């Protein structure tokens, strides 16, 4: 590439090529670095300082204790369940919205995003009304014979999954909507024209091409579910033995900050590695999303 193509300012001064992108990245980098990376490093330092100066006793305590390993496993399965529920409910909804040719679509998307507008406390309150033993959902489940007498969804793992899926569903739907909207509808038509039933056409074409969106949406939902605190503790009560809740308890109730830092470091590490592995799995062939 010749020098003539390098960006110049009005006076003809040649700017170094790296400068414009660096300037564009600067605000985000400052916010991210100052508000996330730096505190996270501090947290990490706290977690590897027992016994001082460098020690991994808190890690040994966490990983050597089946109770905390169970908390970790429960948290990851919560993330997986919520992500799955959001995918199963979110994809058809996003697909419907993306294929709907109506001027009401922006309004419908606004309605979809409604759960995000309500505070976790108010939302969890509503779930209590539905999920308690005398709540509608619990009664329906018992009447339908799907649950034993005295069953309630409140204060249960399933209840946490439902409540979290509700609030995170909009993120999945909006992410998928944008991606599906960008997929040429004639690709589905072409598949059907070549003999694929509508369902198979969506599976063979749309679902494949929406991989990027499925990945982004799942990651968003997964990471927010495993780090969620308010909804799980309100809806889950004592059953909400999850990483975020454990961090809260260690920080605020038990005042063991090194251990809290350790739990949060482990959560972060596992979340990152899950994201990487998931990314590899879903991105079998590197298809650019158009």
């Amino acid at each position, binding site marked *: 590439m010749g020098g003539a193509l390098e960006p110049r300012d009005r006076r003809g001064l040649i700017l170094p090529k790296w400068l414009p992108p660096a300037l564009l990245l600067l605000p985000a980098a400052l916010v991210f670095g100052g508000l996330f990376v730096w505190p996270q490093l501090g947290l990490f330092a706290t977690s590897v300082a027992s016994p001082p100066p460098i020690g991994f006793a808190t890690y040994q305590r966490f990983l050597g204790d089946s109770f905390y390993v169970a908390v970790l496993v429960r948290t990851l399965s919560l993330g997986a369940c919520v992500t799955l529920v959001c995918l199963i409910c979110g994809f058809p909804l996003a697909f419907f919205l993306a294929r709907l040719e109506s001027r009401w679509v922006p309004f419908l998307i606004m309605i979809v995003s409604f759960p995000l507008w309500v505070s976790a406390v108010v939302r969890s309150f509503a779930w209590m009304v539905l999920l308690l033993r005398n709540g509608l959902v619990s009664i329906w489940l018992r009447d339908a014979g799907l649950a034993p007498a005295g069953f309630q969804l409140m204060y249960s793992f399933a209840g946490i999954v439902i409540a979290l899926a509700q609030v995170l569903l909009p993120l999945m739907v909006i992410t998928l909507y944008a991606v599906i909207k960008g997929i040429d509808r004639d*690709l589905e*038509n072409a598949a*059907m*024209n*070549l003999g694929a039933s509508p369902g198979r056409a969506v599976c063979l074409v749309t679902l494949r091409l929406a991989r990027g969106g499925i990945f982004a949406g799942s990651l968003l939902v997964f990471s927010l579910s495993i780090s969620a605190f308010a909804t799980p503790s309100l809806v889950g009560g004592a059953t909400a033995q999850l990483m975020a809740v454990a961090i809260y308890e260690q920080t605020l109730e038990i005042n063991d900050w090194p251990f809290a830092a350790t739990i949060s470091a482990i959560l972060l590490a596992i979340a990152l590695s899950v994201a990487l592995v998931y990314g590899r799995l879903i991105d079998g062939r590197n298809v650019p999303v*158009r």
Partner: protein
Amino acid sequence: MNAEVELRTVSKAYGDAYAVDRVSLEVARGELVALLGPSGCGKTTTLRMVAGFVEPTGGAILLRGQDVTRVPPHRRDTGMVFQSYALFPHLTVAENIAFGLKRRGVARTEIRSRVATMIGLMRLSGLEQRLPRQLSGGQQQRVAVGRALVINPAVILLDEPFSNLDAQLRESTREELRRLQQELRLTAMFVTHDQAEAMAIADRIAVMNKGRIEQIDTPAAVYHHPRTRFVAGFIGRANIFDAEVIARDPAGVAARGPAGITFVLPQGDHPGRIAVVLRPEAIRLAAGTDAHGPNTVAGVVDVVAFYGATAQLGVKLADGSRLLVEGSGDLPQRFAPGSAVVASWAASALVASAA
């Protein structure tokens, strides 16, 4: 008639608006029919109804004699080539072509051989493992055609298949497609807004306007005998005059047009007010100022356009309207702008259509 495709008064209404209004059409085996018209005339909707992507609100569609009006697209035997080609971006050329065969449960070895044959036929050898985005526009178009052909559909449906190609490639590609269609005796319908394209390769042209078929005929018939003013104006260049029939006898019809022209046409079944169509190349010019008798008019040359083998002149008439004349390349030398001319034409060159 052995119709592979038959449309019987097919309509598509969106509320009160008719996108397609009682369209009837038959496509015979081995025939290539073009749906020609301006954008919004309903031609693409008609094609999509044949493929099954759009459900008609009235009428019936038959494929090989079977009513498929309510049959979903994947159970119809059509092969569509989309305007955007709609190649599956995540599949290779070979996989794209094999897609329809796989859906039909064709045995793996047969798929391999049929795909290989199609790749050869479409001159795509060596590109089998490429992804669509690694192909040129022309190659993509050939993959799209190959993907539709390989399943041997009752009818090939082409939606503006050449519109995404540059001018030179467009011409060679359409000739190639025509050759292929004739060699394989393919039944095909194709949608275009380009009348030259339709004239060049179609066996018959259905000219559409505002959801209706105005005329369906061979290219020559559509050109020489446009049945409506719209068809005359849309196909090729034409001088169109409003005229009033003033006399009839067994030998012909006389009609009075603008600028004092009297038209004499061969006998026809025309009402009082007609539109007279006169093709530019049917007009002869001579120097002079006096126009006597029917089928002549005097005027002044005011615009000259030279195209090499041919040339076009604009002749300004007494009432200010302009007559378009087309002739051999020496016209501009003979008639400079400003020269007075008399234009004349044979009665047989005139076509009357509904006003």
